[in-house]
């Protein structure tokens, strides 16, 4: 039996490691994409340079420019130890060349397979793929205890990566923040974890938010039975079909939820609201994003507010037009510097503007915005500095069924 040289073994595990590192960084690469990369390498599409390999791997494995950063991090982590491009490309070629995989199946193996199958001539692509899959499986159990394959990505390592990035940003505050994140990691609940909730009252309140329109820019796709009968009769019995536009709710809803630390006590209430919005399928469009204490230059896609799992607030301005009706849910209990200082966002980027300025941009962009606050002070409460400032900017309602009803009326009214 032929022995693998250490370099070969090292090389193969490095390539495999790249796969796992990508996944650990939060890239959801599937086996089909990985095999597509193999196929591309087999066809020699990477040439012999690392740079070409970088772009080839990126165009096949990464499907959004927002993930390029994660890919870069993974790439750097796996390949940074290597000195020069020449050296690497030699190495790379050795492990990346598909013939290497074929070589892995040593002579003895071939002979055995030969005997078993009888008709075996050469390893074809499918068999190499099968071999490769097998290898991935083996490797998996060795390195990672199988946790990568089952279910979603390792949330922990993901969170760690986010934490690292945040840590670099905040510098001096790391101690406070990391402690906070540990708490956060346990307490934040993904509102999407479908807890079945019967919250009819919220749903009914949300139903108020509708504007039926047949003037939408959609084709006439529904048969107008009355019109057809009329026209056909007028036409002396010869069929004449009349189509009409379906009646559709024209309301588009944008829900922005605070998922900062002070909101934890209200998470079940927020969950109710989220579920109700999510179940209301009568809107033209619903978008939900999360923020941490105040809105800055990034909005998060999940309540955990992990770095990287976000969209640009500017993207939202460009793509969600001013017709969207906006519901912001938050306790508006930011520290004054979180609201007014350009360094107030200790968790992520702020694009050079303070939270207050971002809120002003929101107000300038969207025609209809209401703020729902689960712990709004009754009456005038000047000692709550941030809440008072936010209240002066947006109509604020307490997050109760009653408050929600009022807020919906506000959103739908013309005033």
């Amino acid at each position, binding site marked *: 039996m032929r022995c693998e040289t250490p370099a070969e073994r090292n090389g193969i595990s490095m390539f495999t490691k790249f796969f796992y590192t990508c996944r650990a960084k939060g890239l959801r690469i599937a086996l089909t994409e990985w095999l*597509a990369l193999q196929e591309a390498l087999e066809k020699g599409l990477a040439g012999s340079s690392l740079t*070409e390999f970088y772009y080839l791997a990126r*165009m*096949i494995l990464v*499907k959004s*420019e927002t993930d390029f950063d994660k890919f870069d991090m993974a790439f750097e982590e796996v390949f940074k130890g290597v000195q020069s491009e020449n050296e690497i490309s030699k190495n790379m070629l050795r492990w990346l060349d598909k013939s290497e995989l074929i070589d892995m199946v040593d002579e003895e193996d071939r002979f055995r397979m030969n005997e078993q199958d009888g008709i075996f001539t050469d390893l074809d692509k499918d068999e190499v793929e099968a071999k490769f899959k097998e290898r991935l499986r083996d490797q998996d159990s060795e390195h990672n205890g199988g946790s990568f394959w089952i279910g979603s990505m390792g949330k922990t390592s993901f969170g760690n990566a986010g934490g690292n990035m945040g840590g670099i940003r905040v510098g001096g505050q790391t101690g406070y923040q990391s402690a906070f994140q540990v708490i956060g990691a346990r307490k934040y609940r993904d509102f999407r974890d479908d807890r079945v909730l019967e919250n009819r009252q919220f749903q009914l309140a949300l139903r108020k938010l509708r504007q039926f329109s047949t003037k939408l820019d959609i084709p006439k796709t529904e048969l107008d039975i009355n019109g057809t009968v009329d026209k056909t009769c007028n036409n002396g019995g010869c*069929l004449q079909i009349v189509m009409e536009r379906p009646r559709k709710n024209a309301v588009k809803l944008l829900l922005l939820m605070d998922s900062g630390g002070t909101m934890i006590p209200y998470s079940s209430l927020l969950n109710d609201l989220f579920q109700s919005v999510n179940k209301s399928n009568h809107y033209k469009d619903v978008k939900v994003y999360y923020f941490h204490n105040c809105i800055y230059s990034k909005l998060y896609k999940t309540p955990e507010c992990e770095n990287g799992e976000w969209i640009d*607030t500017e993207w939202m301005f460009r793509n969600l037009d001013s017709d969207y009706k906006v519901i912001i849910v938050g306790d508006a209990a930011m520290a004054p510097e979180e609201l007014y200082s350009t360094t107030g966002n200790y968790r992520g980027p702020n694009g050079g503007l303070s939270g207050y300025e971002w809120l002003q941009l929101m107000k300038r962009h969207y025609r209809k915005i209401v703020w729902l606050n689960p712990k709004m002070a009754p009456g005038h409460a000047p000692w709550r500095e941030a809440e008072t400032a936010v209240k002066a900017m947006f109509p604020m309602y307490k997050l109760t069924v009653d408050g929600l009803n009022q807020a919906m009326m506000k959103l739908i009214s013309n005033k």
Partner: protein
Amino acid sequence: MQQFESTQEYVASEQLMASVNVAIALKKPLLIKGEPGTGKTMLAQAVAKSLGKKLIIWNIKSTTKAQDGLYMYDTIQRLYDGQFGEEGVDDIARYIKLGKLGEAFDSDEQVILLIDEIDKADLEFPNDLLWELDQMEFYIHETKRTVKAKQRPIVIITSNAEKELPDAFLRRCIFHYIDFPDEALMEEIVRTHHPDVEENLLKNAMDVFYRIRSLKDIRKKPSTSELIDWINALQIGGIPANKIKAELPFVGVIVKKDEDLEGLQQRLN
């Protein structure tokens, strides 16, 4: 194997050319993303020209359904024809009209199929095309005919990132993101269109252009093609370079939305 290369009208970056060629080699659709006005649609035309193949464009609108691309069964026409006793009403095939995808499959020559602005359609739209794009065939129920690609078309898909595309769909694509050109490249691009542009005018116009693009709440960022148009307008209007920043002449060419114009006026005052 045929290789895509830059044409005279379209200068593609190395990476972009590589993506096109990888997509052709792996027989996968190429997904092109990038801001509006970065030349996504032009790419398909350039590819078609470079390879000497026919281009079929399927423009996607918010109301487009996957079925539209395959075929349409014109039942109403058939009903009408039936009433008036037209010839051939019993021949259903007469009322089946192939869509753009069907046309691409049915072509004897290999064609380039551009699915333009796929993100305009419903969220489910890309998923509804998975099978057809994978297998390059579909079935017409009414006539029991299978339309299978005679020559696998080269599929180029563009997206403005207005909506997220489904994972299952993305997994099958080769992805390329066209970066917005930086100032140096932009200067080059402008000069290929206006070789005799005056130095000062170009500099002032570009300053304003990038300044507007950097505004946080701008609803529609001006694009490359709009800058080229604007410089053209400034040249024709004979605007002196020093007036550009102060007066923003013809600014409507780069700022198209009323709200953006208002915001810009407010900032000026």
